[in-house]
């Protein structure tokens, strides 16, 4: 015997009236405003995600403008691991070309902007550091320390070359954090802060 088909099958939490109004919204888009609260569109293009600095996004549609207010509170949330990895990879891919240009301009003022843009790239990755694996955060920290308090003109071409190689190899997975540190150590790239005093003062 074939069981009787129930006409009242429902999905938990979904009212049959909701289905009806959803189907109506296809015919009349203005109905949607009665049915659902407006949903935020994900901002995939902003340069300053997660900092609350994103400008308002104006979305045009149906002859009217809908303003999506991107609040700071939204960006206070921790970004996803995948997103953080994407930001890390994207910026690490872009850094070598900046360093290449920096290397060519160490002796002239042009170099300053490449140095500045390099720092900005690192800064962008810091914004999502909470969601990155510890090894990547430490690597980012190492890179930041490698150029802390250094002006572009203080760097030698060889040092920039080493930084470039370390970033490339770390990004493509052929160098781990210990390997990156070793390379920097062997090339006398100082990533450690300097004291203002001398430990031998007492013996003077």
């Amino acid at each position, binding site marked *: 015997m074939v069981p009787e088909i129930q006409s009242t099958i429902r999905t938990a939490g979904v009212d049959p009236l909701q289905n009806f109004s959803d189907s109506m919204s296809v015919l009349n888009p203005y109905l949607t405003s009665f049915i659902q609260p407006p949903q935020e569109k994900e901002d995939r293009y902003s340069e300053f995600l997660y900092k609350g600095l994103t400008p308002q996004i104006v979305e045009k549609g149906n002859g009217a403008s809908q303003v999506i207010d991107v609040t700071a509170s939204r960006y206070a949330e921790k970004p996803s691991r995948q997103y953080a990895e994407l930001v890390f990879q994207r910026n690490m891919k872009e850094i070598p070309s900046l360093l290449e240009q920096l290397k060519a301009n160490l002796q002239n003022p042009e170099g300053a902007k490449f140095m500045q843009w390099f720092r900005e790239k690192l800064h962008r990755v810091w914004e999502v550091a909470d969601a990155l694996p510890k090894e990547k*955060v*430490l690597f980012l920290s190492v890179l930041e320390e490698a150029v802390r308090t250094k002006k572009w003109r203080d760097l030698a071409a060889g040092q920039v070359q080493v930084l470039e190689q370390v970033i490339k190899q770390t990004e493509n997975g052929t160098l781990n954090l210990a390997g990156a540190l070793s390379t920097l150590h062997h090339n006398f790239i100082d990533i450690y802060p300097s004291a203002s005093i001398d430990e031998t003062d007492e013996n003077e």
Partner: protein
Amino acid sequence: MKTNNQLDGDYFLETSVPRQMLFGHSLIKEEIRKYLRKCAQKWSSFYVLMEYKRSVVKTLIDLYFVAKEEKTPSDALHYFQEGFKTRQNKIILSAIAALLEDSEIANDEVKFLVKLETLIFGSFQYFHDLIDKYIENRTGCPLGKISIEDGTPREEAYRKFSEEIDCVRRCSLDELLKDRKGQLKLLIREGEKDPHDKNKGFQEALLLIKSAIGTLDVLKTKTNCMKIGDIIIALEVPKRLQILTFDRGFESTCQILGKGLVLLPSLATLKKSRAPASQPS
């Protein structure tokens, strides 16, 4: 004894060199680099490695946990400076204070902790990258071999390291001292003469050795071992290596024992040498 700036041959790096190379004043770092670039091979010992780990890595790990407890990075550093006053720690804390000049680190405890972890991991790795070869471990000190275990959750690894770096006297220091008793007696005898009697660092260690020369076993304690550290290092170093150090306590020890020494200049000396000559009025 060679106290001039001889730049060839193999050097034995005493603890103050890697420590200052990491956290010393920028002029000091620059000066060390000059020597390291020109030396053939850089040697050290497991005893020096133990001293380095205890004075650098352990200090950073201790500060990391203090920073986790305190409200701000400045509070952590302030508390730490109050509690630890050894001169070795002084430069590390001074260097970290310089890091806090960056407001992003000073106002962000999470970032400060990341920076401390960077320094812990980096300083741990640094010594191994710096040294080419190790001399025979005559003291049998096992502490130099302690590592921050890879694969263990980091804080757990720090805790383990801190526990293991504490000396439990599983070494053969007493045997080394007994074996070198003749040299210790020579140090006592010559140490009373000028100019060694005015070498403060050397005299402090010598006083302890004098009091224990009858029963050298008493020197095999954590505190005593640290107090006579310079003499232990000098006893271990083969004569063909020159000891590279900032520590003037080595001047007397090396001169009496006939060991090569390259004494690096202090910050004050470096600053004086760089200051423009005063104009005659």
